[in-house]
């Protein structure tokens, strides 16, 4: 069965050109870039080229790029180094809708005596800058927030957040894992001190990430050991990964100007679903969103059942329902938005890439109404003759933390 892959916010297909670029570094060019011989030295040169492509993607200096193993490592390092750089400040500000690799680190620091403010989001998944202004103090060491949300695609007003952080003397870290390659990024004249990228979200392989560190930042390495990455991230480099990410960054930089194609396909999918299927709605801000992401809540049915039905047609998507996660609670992001339960459990995320075709989108539009109808016919809530949907079921009991 042909796979229709619409789960690109989870991971992306490695671009064939990226694989071609990597292959020699998995075979003939296996030297250690730290070695003193020419054989290793040529690998070191390739890493420099890759770093240059990352710097171009971020409009940053090459010296500001640190290669890490993944987005999680970059986010962990950023938070830890930011707090170490301002040890006399003991307050962190983040949001309720961050990735667990930020939320869980913050929770750990809470146990170590830090106070953490988790900014709320509104029904459209957007934060309130007034809430940030009210929360920030001279004791705030770090403001750490995602650039765009992985589940809804909602884009936060990053430079405005940064301006508030800088005015209070706080360090500003941005998790841009979902943004790199989808929106233009420029670190020049930005308020961002630290920024995270993950390779496998932009058609590079898994196991490679980047942490941007503004020049002059008092960086404290998380991984200690050798002198790699100028002592800022020890460990022999993941050379094929770095080469692959370099190539992916080069391609992403070029492809940014064609992002309107993804947006057009996303909108075609979104509008097609909304017009063909009753009782569904977009979760997230209508315009302040990534060009590739749509999250739609289908009332009265459950997300995992939708995913397994799509899976029958080879269609890959994602859901924020509890049943897909092994957890008993649905997505913390959708809960924080205060979605009613009728929508919360039946939300599906479709995330496109530059490899998505019109025919694939049309196939989803073809099968999705049937899937939703079938599951609604099974559901007791669709025609709630017995009045089972009580008032208490319709609204969320309390916002998530």
């Amino acid at each position, binding site marked *: 069965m042909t796979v229709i892959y619409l789960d690109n916010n989870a991971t992306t297909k490695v671009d064939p050109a990226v694989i071609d670029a990597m292959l020699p570094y998995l075979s003939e060019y296996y030297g250690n870039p730290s070695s003193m011989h020419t054989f290793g030295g040529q690998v070191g040169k390739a890493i420099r080229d890759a770093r240059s492509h990352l710097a171009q993607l971020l409009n940053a200096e090459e010296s500001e790029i640190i290669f890490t193993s993944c987005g999680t490592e970059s986010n962990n390092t950023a938070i830890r180094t930011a707090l170490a750089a301002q040890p006399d400040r003991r307050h962190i500000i983040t949001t309720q809708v961050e990735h667990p690799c930020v939320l869980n680190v913050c929770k750990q620091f809470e146990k170590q005596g830090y106070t953490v403010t988790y900014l709320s989001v509104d029904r459209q998944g957007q934060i309130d800058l007034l809430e940030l202004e009210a929360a920030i103090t001279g004791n705030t060491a770090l403001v750490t927030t995602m650039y765009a949300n992985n589940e809804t695609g909602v884009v936060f007003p990053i430079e405005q957040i940064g301006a508030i952080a800088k005015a209070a003397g706080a360090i500003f870290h941005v998790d841009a894992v979902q943004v790199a390659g989808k929106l233009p990024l420029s670190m020049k004249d930005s308020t961002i001190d630290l920024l995270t990228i993950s390779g496998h979200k932009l058609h590079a392989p898994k196991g490679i990430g980047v942490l941007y560190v503004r020049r002059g930042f008092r960086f404290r390495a998380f991984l200690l050991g050798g002198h790699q990455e100028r002592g800022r991230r020890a460990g022999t480099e993941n050379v094929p990964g770095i080469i692959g990410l370099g190539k992916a960054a080069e391609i992403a930089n070029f492809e940014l100007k064609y992002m309107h194609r993804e947006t057009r396909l996303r909108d075609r999918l979104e509008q097609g679903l909304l017009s063909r299927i009753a009782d569904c709605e977009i979760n997230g801000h209508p315009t302040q969103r990534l060009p590739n992401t749509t999250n739609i809540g289908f009332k009265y049915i459950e997300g995992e*059942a939708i995913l*397994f039905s799509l899976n029958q047609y080879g269609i890959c998507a994602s859901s924020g329902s509890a*049943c897909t996660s092994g957890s008993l609670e649905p997505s913390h992001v959708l809960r924080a938005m205060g979605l009613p339960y009728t929508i919360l459990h039946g939300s599906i995320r479709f995330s496109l890439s530059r490899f998505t075709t019109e025919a694939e989108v049309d196939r989803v539009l073809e099968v999705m109404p049937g899937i939703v109808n079938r599951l609604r016919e099974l559901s007791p809530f669709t025609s709630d003759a017995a009045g089972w949907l*009580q008032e208490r079921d319709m609204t969320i009991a309390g916002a998530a933390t």
Partner: protein
Amino acid sequence: MWDYTEKVLDLFYNPKNQGAIAADNESGIAVVFGEVGSIACGDALRLHLKIEIAQDKILDARFQTFGCTSAIASSSALTELIKGLTLDEALKITNREIADYLGGLPEAKMHCSVMGQEALEAAIYKYRGIEVEHHEEEEGALVCRCFGISEPKIRRVIIENDLTTVEQVSNYIKAGGGCGSCLAGIEDLIQAIQAEKAATSARVNAELAIVLDDRPLTTLQKINLIQQVLTEEVRPVLLADGGDVELYDVKDDVVQVILKGACGSCSSSTTTLKIAIESRLKERVLPSLVVEAV
């Protein structure tokens, strides 16, 4: 991706007995439904039964389910299992049988089978006019407030499925899967049930031994057994702590022992007597035994 059996997927993609049963006032026939879960919890089942009143028998069963793949498959499996059964026979269906019919469920999805069993019970109780206990009003009886789960329900699932961890309880009925404030309470319940089970098992074993033998233990048998348990099971533990015990005499059900070494001068020797020695002898020999130090 969940590792579902072929049967689960088959009943999800091609469910049997979906829908409602209309009450058409047919003579000698009753139509009733029972429901569990809610849209807030993420899964809900409304089970419809068509009952032949004279025979007390389920003629037809249908379901309406809001939930995941395994919830829909479990509901469909349940309807297949109960069609043709009398109500009393149906009430004996356990969630384990529903899961077994499906060739098993991932442990994190076992609550789907529990939901099936509860909907069945709700429907039959409703038909019989039996009031189902609601514990929401009773402070303390409700253990998990996030999912509204009472102590009797948790007890039942622990006992019926032989659960030993809090995580399992969450997988089976969701209790403890929300804010987590009831986790300690669930753990206490598990321990209490295990202790009850151990005591019951010992009592039953002892009673069985007597019944099977058809005669009470003779004094000689009793002393021999006591000596054996003390030597093989009690002394090694005491010796490890620098103590020891010796059997002094047995008078009816009173076992007299001499505590030696560290046990002789230990301030918690009463505890040693009651927990380490008496409870072990009650469990292994006779529940009526009482241990005294001389």
